[in-house]
């Protein structure tokens, strides 16, 4: 029996209410992408169907309006399964001036035999604030993953901030000590920071590195926490450590929403 290929497009938009608080302006679910409001300004993605399966095309659009804050999480990890052809998950994001988006779903798990494509395009206004975590797990326990190609593009005021692609399941790079080494998961968190131009030259942002994780100040106004790990639990722990080291503004809603502690002194 062949399953009908799924085409789904979910939309999420915020706006300001008359008290100046964030309200969810549009919340269009499209199964299997189902959205549930769990708190003011907080949405959970609830998967109401298996997959994505090969051949499915899923799309999520997020628009965070000027001066609003939105947090997007998910109830469970996403299990990418094989099917008829390639599956696609595309996310388009627009974060307006003075707006904050925290996107921290559970990991994407690449089951054996899957053929998955993920694209994320994020357009940030110059003073928008972003916390974006992405975790990819190479197969369920003891399983070799299928193929996945992800591309992430973030721009600030039209200028490129971060562009990165990951290819999993490619014989050229699998197991390469230059790419993922012996890791079974890869993750990264992009956190916007103040514009480097505003910082005194004498105080360059320092990179930090620990076992399997690096905190990497980008050339533009952001910092990337990049981690490799043996399993999803270790990956989250490494990313969380890195996230806690990033000095985002103390009053940033992003800090409060993700429960970031102020970083310990950078120069102990």
């Amino acid at each position, binding site marked *: 029996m062949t399953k009908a290929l799924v085409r789904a497009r979910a939309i999420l938009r915020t706006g300001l209410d008359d008290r100046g608080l964030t309200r969810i302006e549009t919340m269009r679910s499209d199964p299997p992408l189902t959205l549930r409001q769990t708190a003011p300004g907080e949405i959970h993605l609830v998967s109401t169907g298996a997959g994505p399966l090969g051949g499915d095309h899923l799309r999520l659009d997020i628009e965070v309006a000027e001066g609003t804050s939105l947090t997007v999480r998910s109830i469970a990890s996403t299990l990418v399964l094989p099917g008829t052809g390639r599956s696609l998950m595309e996310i388009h994001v627009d974060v307006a001036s003075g707006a904050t988006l925290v996107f921290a779903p559970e990991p994407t798990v690449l089951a054996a035999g899957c053929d998955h494509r993920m694209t994320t395009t994020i357009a940030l206004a110059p003073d928008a604030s972003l916390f974006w975590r992405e975790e990819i797990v190479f197969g369920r326990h003891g399983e070799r993953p299928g193929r996945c190609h992800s591309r992430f593009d973030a721009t600030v005021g039209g200028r490129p901030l971060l*562009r990165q*692609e990951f*290819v999993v399941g490619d014989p050229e790079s699998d197991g*390469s*000590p*230059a790419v993922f080494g012996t890791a079974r998961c890869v993750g990264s968190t992009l956190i916007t920071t103040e514009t480097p131009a505003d910082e005194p030259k004498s105080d360059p942002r320092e990179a930090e590195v620990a076992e399997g994780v690096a905190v990497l100040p*980008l050339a533009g106004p952001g910092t990337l926490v990049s981690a*490799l790990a043996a399993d999803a639990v270790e990956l989250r722990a490494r990313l969380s450590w890195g996230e806690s080291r990033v000095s985002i503004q103390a009053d940033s809603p992003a800090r409060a929403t993700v429960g970031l502690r102020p970083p310990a002194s950078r120069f102990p």
Partner: protein
Amino acid sequence: MDGTAAGGPAVNGAAPGMPPTHGLAGLLLLADSRLPAGGHAHSGGAEEACRTGAISGPEDLARFLRGRLATAGRVAAALAWSACVAAHDPKFPDMRRPNSHNTAPDGHAHAADAATAWRLLDAEADARIASPAQRLASRTQGRLLVRTAKRVWPSTALGTLAGAVPDGAHHPIALGAAAQAAGCTPAQAAMAAAYTSVTGAATAAVRLLGLDPVTVHRVLAELPLADLTDSVIAEQHDWSALPAHAAPALDLLAEQHLRTEVRLFVS
């Protein structure tokens, strides 16, 4: 301007009417490790990988180099190709630019536009290198290459690039501009970038681990350099859509390496 057939032989190299040796002398000089541009001081993460035991023999090295080529090498080849196309194009920078206004390509306005375009391509490289240690290594090598190439092959494009990015353009961009100055095609520039993305690391591993140089050269010979270069050229993207393959392990190695006390190589 997209560098396809309309770009003509100077752009594509395949070259009806071009002598078969077109660009090759420049390519050999540029890719030669004896080019005095400081490339020998960089191991591309191989020194740290050897120190931590991630590379301990020819098999590990082969996997390291394949992964390096498929990620950093692919990105470098695409950037070098784009830079060389730009340097070749007499209408540059009226290409691949949002809101490009069609001012006549002459005079100061043109030079200023060209500088802006070089900075834009350089920013695209920045956005593809998350690690500050790797950005520094790339800019250091780019600055030295432009300085050397300007004396060896004086050209307008190299002068504009040096003025536009005084701290040093990223290495693949410098390589693309230098390749044009040296008479190379964009395809040759891409090949040189792919080649230098793996040869420095391979030589470093030979020196650090005392590997058999012939075995390591065989590893290099078996790398899919031509396939990679061909696929990069076939894609022919806008700058924003150029390949952006990340290598998280290289990022970690580069940052750890900076913090390692005893180092033979700069990166």
